[in-house]
């Protein structure tokens, strides 16, 4: 189990007060807070060895290059990948998916092919495929969800067919919290000769991750949701797939030789990292990964199951609250979307903010899922390593207060 009291001391922002109340940060699915070691790492790069990488022969450049490449090695270990050359740094998950859609997608998706998505994908793992499908006259196929927000696997077995070229699914839903049975989907995809892309934006920060165990072909995620800085995304792909992919962005760094009329591209992974990358933030990502490894991802997952269990039980006791997604805390992450009778999510969010509690309200970049749920939006509380049961209690009390402010819509 996590020593949450000790963890909290590592996060300077948790000392903040909002509207006169101690900050209770429950918007971790949007982005997480950062521990002091990450903030310090950023500052120390700029103070001590700021330099461009892969080009200078001077000490500063060597230090920066080796710190940058060290992060790649840490990422490799963290996701159980075999080779660090198949880890590409991007700006975020969205850019990583676009890289795949533009490079692999445009080289492999043809008219009549099918791209299989789940009905709970983030716009980031939907719109790039929609554009590609339109351009290539390919078809998007959606895996529907059961009543408690899980992928209907019987249907999946029928929908994933020889026409399928790619299955692109989230590892954990950022709305429903659902944990996807990725390795089963991988088996269905591979049996039909298709590849599988896992959107790990929510999964990787909150669960032990192994690309070998998932048996996926692509994994993408963002460091800013896992204690790291903004501006760093990761694309991992099987090296043989990455090797065959045409470049996405071109220019400096991604080349090995350039003539007036032709070019020889650089090796992996640099072939896909054109231009000066986000050096400081990649380097500081090391500190975030070290921090999570020290906590142990098994412990992180166990803590979040605890939090989800506690919050779900509390929410169920409030009349008028509807929770979306699996009711069983072990089948989901600690991201909980709900509606509260007729109180609009916006009003809930606003009133909670008065009490220093940060939650998210809206469609969470999942408009098709909102339409399926027949709601305009939801309120969403999402938890991480520094959240406590006391904070859950404060959140539940504030919800009851919100109902009072709105004139007892729910608890009449």
């Amino acid at each position, binding site marked *: 189990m996590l020593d949450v009291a000790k963890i909290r001391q590592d996060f300077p922002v948790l000392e903040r007060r909002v509207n006169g109340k101690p900050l209770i940060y429950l918007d971790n699915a949007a982005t997480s807070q950062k521990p002091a070691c990450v903030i310090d790492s950023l500052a120390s790069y700029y103070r001590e060895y700021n330099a461009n990488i892969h080009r200078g022969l001077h000490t500063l450049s060597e230090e920066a290059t080796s710190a940058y490449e060290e992060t790649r090695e840490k990422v490799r270990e963290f996701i159980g990948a075999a080779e660090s050359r198949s880890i590409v740094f991007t700006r975020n998950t969205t850019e990583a998916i676009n890289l795949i859609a533009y490079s692999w997608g445009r080289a492999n998706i043809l008219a009549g092919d099918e791209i299989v998505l789940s009905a709970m994908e983030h716009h980031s793992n939907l719109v790039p495929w929609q554009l590609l499908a339109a351009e290539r006259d390919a078809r998007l196929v959606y895996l529907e969800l059961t009543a408690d927000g899980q992928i209907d696997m019987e249907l999946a077995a029928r929908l994933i067919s020889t026409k399928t070229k790619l299955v692109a699914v989230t590892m954990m839903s950022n709305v429903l919290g659902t944990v996807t049975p990725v390795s089963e989907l991988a088996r269905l995809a591979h049996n039909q000769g298709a590849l599988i892309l896992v959107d790990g934006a929510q999964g990787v920060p909150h669960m032990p991750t192994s690309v070998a165990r998932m048996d996926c072909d692509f994994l993408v995620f963002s460091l800013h949701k896992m204690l790291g800085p903004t501006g760093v995304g990761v694309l991992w792909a099987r090296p043989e797939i990455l090797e065959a992919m045409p470049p996405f962005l071109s220019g400096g760094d991604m080349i090995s030789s350039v003539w007036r009329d032709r070019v020889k591209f650089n090796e992996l992974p640099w072939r896909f990292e054109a231009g000066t990358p986000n050096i400081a933030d990649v380097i500081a990502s090391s500190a975030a990964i070290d921090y999570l490894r020290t906590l142990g991802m098994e412990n992180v997952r166990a803590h979040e199951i605890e939090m989800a269990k506690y919050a779900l039980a509390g929410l169920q006791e409030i009349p008028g609250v509807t929770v979306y997604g699996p009711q069983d805390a072990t089948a989901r992450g600690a991201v909980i979307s709900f509606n509260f009778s007729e109180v*609009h*999510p*916006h*009003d809930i969010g*606003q009133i909670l903010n*008065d009490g220093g509690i940060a939650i998210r*309200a809206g469609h969470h970049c999942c408009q098709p899922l909102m339409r399926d749920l027949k709601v*305009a939006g939801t309120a969403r509380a999402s938890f991480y390593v520094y959240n406590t049961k006391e904070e859950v209690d404060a959140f539940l009390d504030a919800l009851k207060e919100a109902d009072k*402010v*709105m004139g007892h819509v729910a608890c009449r």
Partner: protein
Amino acid sequence: MSLADDLYRETILDHYHHPRNSGTIEHPTVRTEGVNPLCGDEITLYMTVDNDAISDIKLDAHGCSINMASGSMMSEAVKGQSLEHAQEVVRTFKEMMLGPSPDVFLPEELEDLEALQGVRKYPVRIKCALLPWNTLLEAIEKARAGSKIP
């Protein structure tokens, strides 16, 4: 007074729980739709115009309290008014929400709108309050354009 009390005043909650002129009109002169993609507020405005005046207005709205209350108050403020006067009311309201000072003179028949002044302190919510009014402006323009083209 807490922040929430300032925003969720009695008048606002009354309009939210009992929206005026809520519903649809079967054969309106114009019908316009407004959405606030950020939060999912949606509104469909129906308006019947006779002799350049708003003889009937109905709102079919799904949104947060501020959005619903603002639309309800707006419908009361402009029903029966000439298009020109309605446009003036919109101008006054927008001035109150977006102008340099909230202290805009409100004639007696618009006094209820003062309750929405508190929204100024919540920049993200101003859009919610403005949605019905912007939708009305569009409806007025449509009605004008329509009346020129027989």
